[in-house]
């Protein structure tokens, strides 16, 4: 409702400030900024992991089961085998992010292709692709990942691929819906009347316009992939050659009562990162929301 209801001469009517531009849209959303900050910290730590904690985080470097802050050398303590937890967390961040982003990219690639082709061409191609998408959606995603990793080997590559394969249907459905509405737009008609090829229309004309909601979903997908990897490692199906947050939680679960920090620390790291990605997703959603951009 209107705010200023007083009878003022027009010269005194203050025109509310315009809220233009993407930058101010960012800054009006503290949760989005918080998400970016958290993710930024996690990414920086992952990048400089080798500088901060050179050497293999799986090395036994100190006495077992040191509590956090007990010794300055191991700020966050050690686990039952004497591995440095801080080193594990930082190196684990790298694993989690690699898995998260590569799995999401694979899902994005497959999903976009399937959705774009089905949505743009319609007809038989669309029917077939929709059935395939539905088939994948009937299998619980986590089970599918477990099966693929069990068939292959528990390496980072296979795990990322498995998570990507399990998560593309969401993207495919979204992209398909976008393409179906965008292909009816006049600018696509215009492109066709100018004789552009289907490939050009799909990738150059339509796709950039279809991306905003896809980007939003992708950020949440990264979070989902990190959680899936954590789950896998917890079940001892992760890559045995690397430390990940999930494997740390799995290792610590036996001592949940006596040394709860073993699970709590990697658990918190996972939760924070996933939360950050979700905040970013919500923020992007608001920024791309056409109703927000109008004013």
């Amino acid at each position, binding site marked *: 409702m209107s705010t200023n209801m007083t009878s003022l001469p027009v010269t005194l009517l203050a025109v509310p400030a315009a809220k233009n531009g993407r930058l101010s849209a960012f800054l009006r959303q503290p949760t989005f900024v918080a998400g970016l900050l958290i993710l930024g910290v996690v990414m920086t730590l992952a990048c400089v992991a080798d500088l901060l904690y050179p050497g293999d985080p799986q090395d036994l470097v100190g006495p077992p089961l040191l509590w956090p802050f007990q010794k300055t050398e191991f700020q966050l303590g050690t686990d039952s085998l004497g591995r440095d937890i801080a080193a594990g967390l930082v190196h684990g961040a790298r694993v989690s992010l690699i898995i998260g982003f590569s799995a999401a990219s694979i899902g994005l690639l497959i999903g976009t292709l399937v959705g774009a082709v089905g949505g743009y061409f319609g007809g038989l191609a669309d029917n077939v692709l929709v059935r395939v998408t539905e088939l994948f959606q009937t299998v619980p995603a986590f089970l599918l990942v477990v099966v693929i990793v069990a068939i292959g080997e528990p390496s980072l590559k296979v795990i990322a691929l498995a998570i990507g394969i399990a998560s593309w249907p969401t993207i495919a459905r979204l992209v398909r819906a976008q393409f179906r509405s965008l292909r009816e*737009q006049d600018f696509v008609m*215009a492109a066709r009347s100018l004789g552009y090829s289907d490939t*050009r229309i799909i990738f150059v004309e339509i796709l950039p316009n279809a991306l905003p909601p896809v980007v939003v979903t992708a950020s949440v997908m990264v979070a989902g992939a990190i959680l899936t990897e954590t789950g896998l490692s917890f079940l001892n199906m992760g890559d045995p050659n690397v430390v990940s947050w999930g494997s740390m939680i799995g290792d610590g679960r036996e001592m949940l009562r006596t040394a709860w920090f073993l699970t709590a620390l990697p658990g918190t790291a996972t939760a924070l990162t996933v939360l950050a990605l979700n905040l970013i997703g919500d923020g992007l959603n608001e920024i791309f929301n056409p109703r927000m951009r109008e004013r």
Partner: protein
Amino acid sequence: MQLLDVENLQTSYHSHGRILRAVDDVSFTVGKGETVGLVGESGCGKSTLGKTILRLVPSSAGQIRFSGADIAPLSGKALIPYRRRMQMIFQDPFGSLNPRQTVRTLLDTALKVHRLGDVTERTRRINETIDRVGLPRTALSRYPHEFSGGQRQRIGIARALILEPELIVCDEPVSALDVSIQAQILNLLVDLKRDLGLSYLFISHDMSVVRYFTDRVLVMYLGRIVESGSYETLWSNPRHPYTRALIDAVPSYDAQKKRTAVVLKGDLPSASQVPSGCRFRLRCRFAQERCSDEEPALRRMPSGQSVACHFA
């Protein structure tokens, strides 16, 4: 030889198991340098007809002869040379421009796709076109949302012109624009026609715009042409009751001549439920028994126009 010669053209859609004939057995021609108007209510199939001729919507029967060659059966690469020669101007100046491309990209892509010239040649053509539609060259580096409705329609016209077509299908090009801008755009289209020898198929629901802008008019009702003729005869002597009703529906600016009677009964029926016999009979004041039994053919009248009505 006519530039465009459409014969018995039909466009059908499948919808919920039924076949809708959006365009039903339509024949007409557009000569070189001629402007042909296509009028009718929304949903009468006029837009579909325009898109069918440009092969943006597949036809289900009939011929579309462009410069003598039937382009209806062509597809893919074989169509590309014809795409260059026929273009379209759209109604909605907001939806018809890709929001993520600058004006330069918009125009340049078309030239690149048709491999027309190197960078300097393309720049020359882009500059020439943007000058022609009355936009400053600084517009080239801007995005569509930075322009007003009228300016965006000029960009749409520039895009239609860039490939130097011979025929332009104008689909309600001014109906989304303000009155003062409408006149600017219509004047521009007249100039372009004169300077470039263009032919137009001008689709509109606005009778006053069609009367001003076209040489010959086709009146379309539920997928069929019910009357056609030169603009003078059609306006001075409309023979089909539907044409009469469309003309009467236009509000008069004479405040004295107020409140004309209601001219048509009911709404346009859906294309899936075309009445038997004359398809206009349910809304016609003069309908008789014969109209429900027998579909009137498009007959040539001594006055010059063709009319599909038993009692014309």
